[in-house]
C-alpha cells in the first residue's frame, strides 16, 4: 500500500476535510471505501436499466464532490452519499412516475423449479415497477424508515407504506407461484 494512502482507520469526516483541501489520496480513500456499496445500491435501484450503472455511480461521486462542503457529519457519510445516489438514480428512471404499480408480465420464476434463491430475488426485484422497487430496496434492503423514504422521494409516508405493501405482495406472489408451478 502506498505511503500516501490514508489507512482504513481514518474517519470519513477527516477524509472529507482533507478532500476539501484538495487531497487526492483522501478522495481515493473515500472512493475505495464506499463505491462497492454505492454501486450495489444503484444497481438494484436501476433494475433492468443496468446500462446506466457506471454513469449513475460516477455522477453520484461528482455531485458528492461538488457538494462536499455541505457535508457536516451529522449523518454517516455513507448515508449522505446514498441519498445523493438515490436522487440521481431516480432521475435516470424516466418511467418511475408513470408506472401503475403492477408487476411486469415477464417477471422471472425461480430457477430450476427449486426453492427461491438470492438470484431469483434479485431478478424479481429488478422486474418490479420502478417506484415499487425503489421503496423495497430502500426499506427492506437498505433499512430506511418510511419517514426517510418519504423525505428522500418527496412522497407521503402513507404512499411509501402502500407502495411497500403492494411490492411485497407482488414479490411473494412471484416467488411462490414460481415454486408452485414447478411442483
Amino acid at each position, binding site marked *: 500500500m502506498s*505511503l*500516501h494512502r490514508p489507512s482504513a482507520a481514518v474517519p470519513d469526516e*477527516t477524509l472529507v*476535510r*482533507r*478532500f476539501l*483541501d*484538495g*487531497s*487526492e*489520496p483522501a*478522495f*481515493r480513500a473515500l*472512493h*475505495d471505501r464506499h*463505491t*462497492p*456499496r454505492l*454501486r*450495489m445500491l444503484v*444497481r438494484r435501484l436501476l433494475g433492468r436499466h443496468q446500462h446506466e450503472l*457506471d454513469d449513475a*455511480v*460516477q455522477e453520484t*461521486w*461528482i455531485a458528492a*464532490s*461538488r457538494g462536499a462542503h455541505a457535508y457536516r457529519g451529522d449523518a454517516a457519510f455513507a448515508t449522505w452519499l446514498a441519498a445523493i445516489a438515490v436522487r440521481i438514480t431516480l432521475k435516470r428512471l424516466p418511467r418511475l412516475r408513470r408506472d401503475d404499480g403492477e408487476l411486469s408480465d415477464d417477471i422471472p420464476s425461480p430457477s430450476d423449479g427449486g*426453492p*427461491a*434463491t*438470492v438470484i*431469483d*430475488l*434479485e431478478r424479481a426485484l429488478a422486474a418490479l415497477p420502478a417506484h415499487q422497487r425503489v421503496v423495497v430496496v430502500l426499506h*427492506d*434492503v437498505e433499512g430506511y424508515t*418510511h419517514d426517510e423514504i418519504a423525505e428522500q422521494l418527496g412522497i*407521503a*409516508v*402513507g404512499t411509501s*407504506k*402502500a407502495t*411497500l*405493501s403492494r411490492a*411485497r*405482495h407482488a*414479490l*411473494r406472489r412471484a*416467488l411462490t407461484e414460481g415454486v408452485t408451478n414447478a411442483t
Partner: protein
Amino acid sequence: MRPDNDIPIPDYDAELRALFDALPHDAPTDPGAAERLVVRLRHEGLLVRHRSVIASISSVIPSAARDLQFRWPVGIAAVLLLVALGAWGGWTAGRRGSLEEMLTRNDLTVGDRVLLLQRAGSAYVTAAQSYANATARTDTTAIEVASRVLLGAAHAVARNHLDAGIAEQLTTVLQQSATRSRPTVWF
C-alpha cells in the same frame, strides 16, 4: 380516511426474509472508475496537484506530522527550506568564477592566469571609468586612487619582468606624477 400507520404491510415469510438477509451489499468496482473521476475532479479544480508534492515531502517525516494540524506548518517549513537551498545554491553558483574567487585559487592553468590578468585589467579600467562617471571628472580623489592603483600594478608587473621594459618607463612617469599630488589615506 385511514391514518398512515394503519396501512397493512404484509411481512415476508421466514424463507423470503432469509433471502433478503442474504443479499450482498457490495458490488465489484470498475478498476478505472477512480482514475476517470480523479481526472474529472482535477479538471474541475476540486483536486490540486501540488498537494501531492506536500504529501510526498511529509511522507518522509514522522507520521504524526502528516496529521491535519501539522500539514500546513510542514508545508511552510518545506517551502522555506527549498527557498533557502535555492538562495544558497544561487549565491554559490554566482560566486563561482568571480574575480575574487579566481584570485584565491591556486589550481589555475597558465592560460587561465592570462585570462585572469586580462579580466583584472578590464575590471580596473571599468572601475576607473565608472568612478569617473559617477563623480566630477576633476575629482582629485578619483585621480589619486586610480593613479596609486595603476602605479602599484606597474610595480608588480615590473618586478616580475612581465612588461618587456615598458613598465619601467611608465613607473618613472607615474612616480613623478604621484609625488606632486597629496597622499592618499588607505583603509
